[in-house]
C-alpha cells in the first residue's frame, strides 16, 4: 500500500514536471552516445543530450538538462562526441544546462570542422531570450563557438537577452569564440569562473546591437585566444550604450587582442574593473572605449604588464569620473596608462599607480580639454617617454615620483591653475630633452612647490613661458637656470 501511494505521488510529480503547459521539467542525460530516437527516457541510456535538448525545447517553461553522475563521473568526465550538430535550444523561457555533480565534456566526434557550434541557445524570430544558464560543463573543439546565447533567431540574434548565466565552464580549442552572448539589448549577463583557452577568434564575447547593461564577470580566464583575428580575451561591445559593468578577479594572458576590451559606439558608464590581470597580449592589456560619453570608469588593483601596446587605454568623447587606483602597468610596448578624450576630460582621480619600463610614457593624457585631474602617490620610472604627461587646467599632482624616465613630469598647453607639489623628477635622461618638471608655453597660472628635481639631462625645472609668466615656482629642491624657477 505504502509502495503504491509512493508510486502515485511520484507519477503525479513527473506528470506535473513534464506536462506540456506546466512548469519547468528536468531531463537527465544518461548516456554519452549521440543518437536520437525522439524520446528522453529514464531507462538506462535512454536520454542522449540530443534527446534532452529536443525534449526541453518541446516542453514549455524553463527546463533543466542535467547529467547522470554514474555516466558522467566527476573527476573522470564522460565525453559526448557529437556525430551531428546539436539542436538549437530554442526556448524563450530559457533553459538550464547544468553538469553540477557530474563531469561533462561536449565535443564533436568527427574532428574539428564537421560541426560548427557547440551549445546554441536562441529564442526565435526576434523574441527575447531569458534566464539561460549553462554551468559545470566543458565544451571544446568545435569549428565555431563553444557556447552561443542568442536573442531571437540564430544566427541573426536580433532579440533581447536577459539574465544569461555562464558558470564554471571550460571552453577551449574552438575555431571561433569560447562563449558568445549576442542580442539586441543584453541585460544582466553573469559569467563566473569561465575558462576560455585556445579559441581562435576570441574568448568571452558579449555583443549587443542595442544596449549592454549590468554585465558581471568574475573569476574568468582567457588564455591565448583570438590569435587569428586579434580578438580579445573578454569583449563587450555595443553600438548604443554599455552601462553598469563589473569585471573582477579575471585574467587575460597571451591573447591576440586585449585581455579586456569594452567598446561602446555610444555612451559608456559605470564600468568597474577590480583585480584584473592582463599580460603578454598582442595588443594593449585593457582597452575601454566610448565613442560617446564615458563616465564613472573605475579600475582598482589592475595589473597590466608585457603587452604589445598600452597597459591600459581609455578613450572617450567626453570622459568624466574616471578613477584609477592601484594600477601596475609595466614594460608595455607603448604607454603604461593612456587616457584620451576627444572632447573633454574632467575629474579623474589617479592614485597609487606604478608604471615602469614602458616603451612610451608612464601615464599620458595627451589630448582634449582636460581639467580637474588629481594624481597622487604615483611612481613612474624607467619609461622611455615622459613619466607623467598631461595637459589642461585645475589638476593637482601630489607625491608623484617621476625618476629616470625619458623626461619627468610635463604639463602641456593649453592649461592653467594646476598645482604640482611634493613630487620628484630626478635623473630623467632621454628625449625629448630629459627635463625634470616642465611647464609648456601657454600653460600658465600654475603653482609648482616643494618638489625635488635633480640630475636630469635636460633642465631640472623648465618653464616654456618667458619669465615664468603667471607660474609660481617655490620651495623646490633643484638646480635651476632661471631665477623665476626658484
Amino acid at each position, binding site marked *: 500500500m505504502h509502495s503504491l501511494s509512493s508510486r502515485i505521488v511520484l507519477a503525479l510529480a513527473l506528470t506535473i514536471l513534464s506536462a506540456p503547459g506546466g512548469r519547468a521539467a528536468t531531463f537527465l542525460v544518461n548516456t554519452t552516445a549521440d543518437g536520437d530516437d525522439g524520446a528522453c527516457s529514464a531507462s538506462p541510456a535512454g536520454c542522449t543530450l540530443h534527446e534532452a535538448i529536443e525534449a526541453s525545447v518541446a516542453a514549455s517553461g524553463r527546463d533543466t538538462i542535467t547529467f547522470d553522475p554514474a555516466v558522467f563521473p566527476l573527476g573522470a568526465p564522460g565525453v559526448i562526441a557529437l556525430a551531428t550538430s546539436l539542436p538549437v535550444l530554442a526556448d524563450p523561457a530559457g533553459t538550464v544546462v547544468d553538469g553540477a555533480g557530474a563531469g561533462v565534456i561536449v565535443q564533436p566526434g568527427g574532428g574539428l570542422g564537421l560541426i560548427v557550434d557547440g551549445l546554441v541557445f536562441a529564442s526565435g524570430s526576434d523574441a527575447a531570450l531569458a534566464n539561460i544558464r549553462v554551468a559545470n560543463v566543458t565544451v571544446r573543439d568545435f569549428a565555431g563557438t563553444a557556447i552561443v546565447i542568442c536573442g531571437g533567431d540564430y544566427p541573426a540574434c536580433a532579440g533581447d537577452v536577459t539574465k544569461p548565466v555562464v558558470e564554471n565552464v571550460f571552453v577551449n580549442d574552438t575555431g571561433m569564440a569560447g562563449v558568445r552572448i549576442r542580442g539586441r539589448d543584453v541585460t544582466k549577463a553573469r559569467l563566473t*569562473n569561465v575558462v576560455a583557452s585556445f579559441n581562435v577568434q576570441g574568448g568571452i564575447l558579449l555583443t549587443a546591437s542595442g544596449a549592454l547593461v549590468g554585465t558581471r564577470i568574475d573569476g574568468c580566464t582567457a588564455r591565448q585566444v583570438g590569435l587569428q583575428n586579434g580578438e580579445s580575451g573578454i569583449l563587450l561591445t555595443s553600438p548604443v550604450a554599455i552601462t553598469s559593468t563589473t569585471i573582477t578577479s579575471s585574467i587575460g594572458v597571451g591573447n591576440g587582442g586585449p585581455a579586456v576590451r569594452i567598446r561602446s559606439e555610444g555612451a559608456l558608464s559605470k564600468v568597474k574593473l577590480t583585480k584584473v*590581470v592582463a599580460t603578454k597580449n598582442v595588443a594593449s592589456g585593457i582597452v575601454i572605449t566610448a565613442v560617446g560619453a564615458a563616465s564613472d570608469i573605475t579600475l582598482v588593483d589592475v595589473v597590466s604588464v608585457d603587452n604589445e601596446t598600452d597597459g591600459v587605454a581609455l578613450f572617450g568623447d567626453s570622459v568624466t569620473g574616471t578613477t584609477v587606483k592601484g594600477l601596475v602597468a609595466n614594460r608595455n610596448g607603448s604607454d603604461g596608462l593612456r587616457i584620451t578624450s576627444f572632447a573633454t576630460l574632467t575629474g579623474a582621480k589617479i592614485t597609487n599607480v606604478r608604471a615602469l619600463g614602458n616603451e612610451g610614457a608612464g601615464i599620458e593624457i595627451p589630448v582634449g580639454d582636460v581639467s580637474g585631474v588629481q594624481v597622487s602617490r604615483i611612481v613612474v620610472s624607467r619609461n622611455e617617454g615622459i613619466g607623467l604627461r598631461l595637459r589642461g587646467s585645475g589638476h593637482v599632482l601630489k607625491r608623484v615620483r617621476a625618476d629616470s624616465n625619458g623626461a619627468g613630469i610635463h604639463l602641456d598647453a593649453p592649461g592653467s591653475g594646476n598645482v604640482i607639489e611634493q613630487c620628484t623628477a630626478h*635623473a630623467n635622461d632621454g628625449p625629448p630633452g630629459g627635463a625634470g618638471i616642465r611647464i609648456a608655453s601657454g600653460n600658465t597660472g600654475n603653482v609648482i612647490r616643494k618638489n625635488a628635481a635633480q640630475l636630469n639631462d635636460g633642465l631640472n625645472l623648465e618653464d616654456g613661458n618667458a619669465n615664468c609668466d603667471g607660474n609660481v615656482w617655490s620651495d623646490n629642491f633643484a638646480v*635651476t637656470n632661471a631665477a623665476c624657477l626658484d
Partner: protein
Amino acid sequence: MQRLLLPSGHRRLARRSYAGLLLLLFLASLGADPARAATFTVNSLLDTTDGACGPAPGGCTLREAIEASVAAQGRDTIAFDPAVFPSAGFTGSIAVNTLPLIADPAGTIIDGKGATVTINCGAFARCLAFESPAGVALEKVTVANLTVVNVTGTAIDVCGGGAPACDDDVRGVLIENVAVGGAQSGISVRGGVVSKARIVGSVVSNSTSGIFIGGSRELRGARVEGTSTLGSGIYVFGNERLVDATVADCLSTGDSRGIFLQSTLAVSTAKVTDVVTFETADSGVRIVADGTTTGATITNAVASAFGENGVQVYGEAGNRAVTVRGVRADRGGDGVNLFGPTDGATFRDLILVGNVNGLDFSEPGTSVTHTKISDVLSVDNERGAFVIGGSNKLKNVFAAANDSGIVLSGAGGDVVEKSRAMANGGPGIALESNGNVIRKNVALGNIVDLSDDSPTCGTNIWQKNVFRTGSAPCIR
C-alpha cells in the same frame, strides 16, 4: 625669608619675567661656550685655503669652512651664502680636490638650505667624509639640501672611527634632500653600532652602490624614506643585529640589488613599505638573516623585472611574525619567496605575474606552518603557489595560466578553500601531503584539475569542489 606680596596679575608677570630671564641666561650660556656650535658660511665657489673662514666676500671656501668646523669644538654648521649660491637661477658648482676629513665626533651639519649648492668632487676616493677618532663615537652628522656629483669614490661617507674599519659607533645621522650623481658609492653610513641613521628625500643616480647603512655590530632604528636610487640600490645592514629598520616610500632601479635589509645573525622588526624596485639583477626586496627574522613586514611593494626574488624574507634559522601584504611582483625568479622555518606568517593581497614561481615556500630548509595566505592572484608563472609545510590556510588564492597552479607538500594539515585554479598547464590544485582539507574551490581548464598523490586520497578531505578532472575517484 619674607615673602614678597604682589597682586595675582603681578605675580603672573613676575613668574613670566623670571622664566624669561632664565631663558636669556640659558641662551647666553650657549653663545658664550666655545664648545657649543658655531656656524661657518661658505661664500666662495673656489677650493682654496688661507687657513681662515672669514665673512668677507670670497673669504670662506668650503675647504676653509670644513677646516674651521673641525678646529672648533661642538656640533658646528657649515652653511652657504645665498648671495653666492642663489636659491634660484644658479647652476654653478664648487669643484673640489680631496676635501679635508670632517673629523668632529660632536658631529657637523652641512646644510645648503636657502641656497643652491652643487659640489663637483672629481676623481677622489671620498668627497664629504665624516669620521671620529678611533674609539670615539660619531654623533649627529647632518647633510642636507645639496648636490654632489662626479665622485670616483664615495660621495658622502659617514664613518664611526677611522676608515676603512669604521667600527666605532655612529648616532643620529641625517641625510636629507641630497642628490648624488655619478659616484662609485652614493651615501655610506658605517660604524660599530649605528643608531637612528636617517636618509630622507634624497636621490642617488648612476652609482654602483647607492645607499649603504651598516653596523659592524648592530644597526638600530635606521630609516630610509622618500628616496630614489637609480642604477643602484639600498642596503641596510647590521652584522650581529638589525633592529627597527624602516624603508618607506622609496624607488630602486637598475642595480644588482633593490632594497635589502640584512643581518648575519638576527633581524628584529624590519619594515619595508610603499616601495618600488625595477630591473634588479638580484632581488627586489629582501629581509635577510643568516639567523632569525622577527617581525619582518613588507607592504605595498612593487617589484618588476628582478633576477632572483621579487620579495623575500629569509631567516635561515627561522622567521617569526612575517607579514607580506600588497605586493605586486612580475617577471623574475620567485614573486614572493620565503626561506627558512616559518611559523605564523601572513601573506595577503598579492598579485604575481610571469615569474618562475609566483609564491614559493619550497626551498630546501624551508617549512612553513600556521601561515595564512589569502587574496592572491598568481598568473603566468611556472608554478602559481608552491608551499611546503603544514597547517597553513590558503583562501581566495587564484592561480591561472601557470605551468601548475597550487601545490602543497610537507607535513600536511593545510586547508585550501574558496580558491581557484584555472587554465594551468599542469595540475590545478595538487597535494603531495596528507591530512589536508580542500573544499569549495574551483579548478577548471587544467591538465588535471585536482590531484592527490595518493590514489585513495589518504587522509585528505576533498569536498564541494567544482572541477572536471581529478587524479583519483576520492576527489570530490
